[in-house]
């Protein structure tokens, strides 16, 4: 019990400090989730504490994932009003993004002969963490790898996404928002939201719907690929 409480307090304290560091520095790379993980792992190894011991408390934070997913219904409700007449085409574009995200990572993973759990984790990298972790658990992925893959995809898109789009001649703010949201979920959305409201709105639209499409498609693709 004491171990559990201590590890929760320890995690909250480190996360808060990292969030503070990012707020004052405003650098996407200093993601508080990533920083906390990179600080906690060496500390545990150094202190000879196993993940199992740490997770007696950590699991309580993981339990909160489910209500977090439900809470995402709020931005979904706010974005649904955006859809209006264009909904068919917008959803089709986001669906295309989810298909590219899943099939490309599964294909590369099979070509490089990675195991099924690793492939599952990689296929979930483009969607928002709470939903991805739920799917990862359900589909037998490596949850830790899923979490890290998501952060990596997020930071990559937040940093390189817009320069790549500019290079390809994609200048429309709605198109840029959709693209970054589809590839880099919440991290990308937070970054492009600073450019314009339109960027942010279309990015979060892509963020929410790619997660729903991925939840529906991914189990299918994985069972086909590893049949």
């Amino acid at each position: 019990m004491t171990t559990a409480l201590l590890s929760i307090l320890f995690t909250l304290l480190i996360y808060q400090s990292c969030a503070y560091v990012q707020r004052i520095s405003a650098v996407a790379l200093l993601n508080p989730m990533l920083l906390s993980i990179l600080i906690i792992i060496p500390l545990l190894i150094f202190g000879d504490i196993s993940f199992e011991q740490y997770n007696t408390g950590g699991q309580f934070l993981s339990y909160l994932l489910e209500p977090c997913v439900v809470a995402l219904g709020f931005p979904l409700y706010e974005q649904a009003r955006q859809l209006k007449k264009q909904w068919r085409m917008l959803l089709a574009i986001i669906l295309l993004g989810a298909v590219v995200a899943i099939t490309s990572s599964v294909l590369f993973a099979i070509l490089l002969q990675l195991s099924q759990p690793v492939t599952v984790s990689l296929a979930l990298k483009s969607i928002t963490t709470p939903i991805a972790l739920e799917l990862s658990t359900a589909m037998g992925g490596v949850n830790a790898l899923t979490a890290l893959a998501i952060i990596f995809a997020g930071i990559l898109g937040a940093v390189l996404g817009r320069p790549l789009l500019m290079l390809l001649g994609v200048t429309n703010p709605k198109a840029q928002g959709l693209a970054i949201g589809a590839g880099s979920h919440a991290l990308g959305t937070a970054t492009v939201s600073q450019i314009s409201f339109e960027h942010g709105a279309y990015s979060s639209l892509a963020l929410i719907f790619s997660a729903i499409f991925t939840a529906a498609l991914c189990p299918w693709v994985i069972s086909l690929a590893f049949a």
Partner: protein
Amino acid sequence: MLYAALCISGCLAVGKILFWLVGGLPGSLYGMILFAVCLHRGLMRAEKIKPTIHGIMRFMGVCFVPAGVGMMDHLSLLQNSGAMIAAIIALSTLMVIATVGLVAQHYFSQSDHKRDTN
């Protein structure tokens, strides 16, 4: 705060029952869709829930930390295939951004053009 907690846990409970009955998506995803529908229909009052949601969004990240710390049990995986994994993530992410960006740009330039000429 209490109202928001009640709405969220109510939707989660119904979502879990739905998963138990029909399967498919995880229960929390059914809960999320149900939550959005209830807000849209005015069954739950959005302005009362909004402040709590903002709080949740700000601190959600800490809930993912223990899952990531679990990587310490898989360090050999990173040692053996970390480079491949990173390459796949990078390539696939850039492919998604490029594809969605190009298709959306094409679509919006057409639809905006149509609106301008009408």
